[in-house]
């Protein structure tokens, strides 16, 4: 079969598959269904395998990894979210949060599938190994920050339910506040470290590869602003006695900035970072 057929088929199929996953995790969140409970894990693995195949197929078809445009990055992010959640499922005792993490993956993948373009002519520098490191650390970092935001949001929902004595589904299905907070915090630290690495690689190594690099690049400035925000938040937690609700709000605000900067910089501003 032609690799382009695979690419197009999976491009259309992936949002549907993520939707199916979200429905499965949604149903098991709201009611007990032993059958779905058993099938959802293999289904998640299957979707991730298909997603990885899609990314591989794209790389082969267009002769570059899918990291050159906003919508290529988004499908990468969706895949990373899926993988990160798979890790959570296998390595931690945190249950029942798949609905929320995978919903985010569904949103990313849907946007990507709708708007992604098939780019055949690519600049030579996309084959640089250093750029590969730069992009993968940034991607993983953003994935971790998204995860921090999801768990932050869940924390706030549960906090609200406990505080107001209105115990609904959130209360009965989610893990405890302390666990959610530590999940969010750990993701945030992980994301922050990776983002720091991405910025360092970018600032130190990329000028060696690209002669026309500018330090006033909007994406660079945006990313550094986001980095400072997270640095302050982590500091406030460590030194300023910020605990619980406040830090979780920050994780959400930080994510909102990440999302906005990604859209604004890539869609409205011209930058060497957007490539096209």
């Amino acid at each position, binding site marked *: 079969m032609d690799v382009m057929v695979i690419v197009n088929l999976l491009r259309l199929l992936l949002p549907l598959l993520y939707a199916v996953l979200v429905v499965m995790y949604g149903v098991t969140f709201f009611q007990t269904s032993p059958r779905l409970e058993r099938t959802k894990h293999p289904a998640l693995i299957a979707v991730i395998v298909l997603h990885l195949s899609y990314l591989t197929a794209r790389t082969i078809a267009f002769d570059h990894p899918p990291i050159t445009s906003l919508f290529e990055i988004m499908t990468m992010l969706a895949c990373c979210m899926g993988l990160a959640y798979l890790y959570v499922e296998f390595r931690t005792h945190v249950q029942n949060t798949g609905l929320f993490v995978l919903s985010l993956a569904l949103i990313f993948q849907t946007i990507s599938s709708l708007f992604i373009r098939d780019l055949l002519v690519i600049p030579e520098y996309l084959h640089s190994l250093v750029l590969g490191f730069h992009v993968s650390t940034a991607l993983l970092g953003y994935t971790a920050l998204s995860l921090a935001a999801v768990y932050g949001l869940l924390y706030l929902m549960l906090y609200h339910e406990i505080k107001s004595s209105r115990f609904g589904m959130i209360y009965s299905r989610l893990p405890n506040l*302390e666990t959610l907070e530590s999940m969010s915090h750990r993701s945030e630290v992980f994301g922050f470290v990776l983002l720091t690495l991405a910025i360092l690689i970018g600032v130190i190594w990329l000028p060696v590869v690209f002669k026309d690099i500018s330090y006033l690049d909007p994406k660079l400035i945006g990313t550094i602003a986001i980095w400072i925000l997270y640095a302050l938040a982590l500091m406030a937690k460590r030194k300023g*006695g910020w*605990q619980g609700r406040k830090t979780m709000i920050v994780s959400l605000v930080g994510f909102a900035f990440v999302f906005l900067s990604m859209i604004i910089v890539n869609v409205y501003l011209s930058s060497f970072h957007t490539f096209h």
Partner: protein
Amino acid sequence: MNLFSIGISHHTAPVDVREHMYVSADELPRVLAQLKERLFSECMLVSTCNRTELYGILQDPSVADREIIAALLTVKGAAETVHPDHFTSHHAGAALHHLFRVSAGVDSMVIGDIQILNQVKEAFQTARDAGSLGPVMNRLMQASLHVGKRVRTETTICEGAVSVSYAAVELASKIFADLSRKTALLIGAGETGELTLKHLVGKGIGKVVVANRTRSRADELVAQLGGEAIDYEQMETGLRTSDIVITSVNSPTYVVQSEHVHQVMRQRGNNPLFIIDIGVPRNVNPAAKKIENVFLYDIDALSAIVDRNLQKRTAAMPAVTRIIREEMVEFFRWHKSLEVAPTIQEFRNTLETIRQDEVQKHINRFTAEDRELVELVTRRIVNKILHQPLITLKQGAENGGGEAETTLRIKVLRELFGMTKHTEHDG
């Protein structure tokens, strides 16, 4: 099916009557042995603080309830104190239904109290060890435990705390991840407060601190639960280092002011503080509820949780009823397979299938005129083999009394000839 059940429970008798019928684990083998000898071919007895119930297969199905009650009272030596009116009995399907309801926790004092399942399990195990279970009761044991297991995993009947003290503990485990790294402080020593602390200890709370106006009472409690007693005046220090605070003080004014809590929160680096105010009138100024990372609950809020949980449990009843019905159908299907007639038919069919297969395979080796003879001879061999086992089975069934023996024979026959498949149980 001659299954029979009789007993007293919280539905039929007050505790001062029930306690006379309580059979301890030590007594149980003797009681079972005596009852089995007198009345039953198989039997089991479950005895808890809420019920003492006897289940069994009667040797003589026509024996009257009062005779069984009399036997039970005699064995227990309670004929003087317990009136037969306190007993209720169930027969056949109704007895099965009752046992399944008990195992599912829906006959308990508090609906969904699944602790009964362990007690039923132990009762069956003791009966098995004492040699008073036969094939039917053994199967019944599997089926009852399966009902309990299904109810626990497939429905929400045992979810949610249904007492104020458990509701508090449940909330604590929704706030904190690892109770073994947390400290609980009990201020005052009211009954519910103590109970809550005990539940927390049961859940593995890391450290216990008790502050009470009467220091000796605090010392007493600490001696019982482990931990540390502090002076009532040191309460504020206690607040600073504790994560869970239970207040249960008899005081007309607030014992803890919201300014206190504010100050304490700053000192403890805003780490979450869970306050359970069980005092009436309340011990903690409700304004403290607004402080970030403070979770303050009073007795009404906790009672509201309990009410809601009870409603939720009741709402799960239809699902439990469905499971019980399914398991009853399954049990009856199995039981039917133990009847003599269908077994004989099936045994015949099994052997006949083997005969036909073998004859078919080799028939071509015989000349046309011999083939009829082969049919005749093989048929006669099979009939000869069948003859004695079938006579024994039929006689056993017709003689009545030896039902347990017949059941056992059928069970063995089915197992030996691989006729068990369609009645396999998945639990």
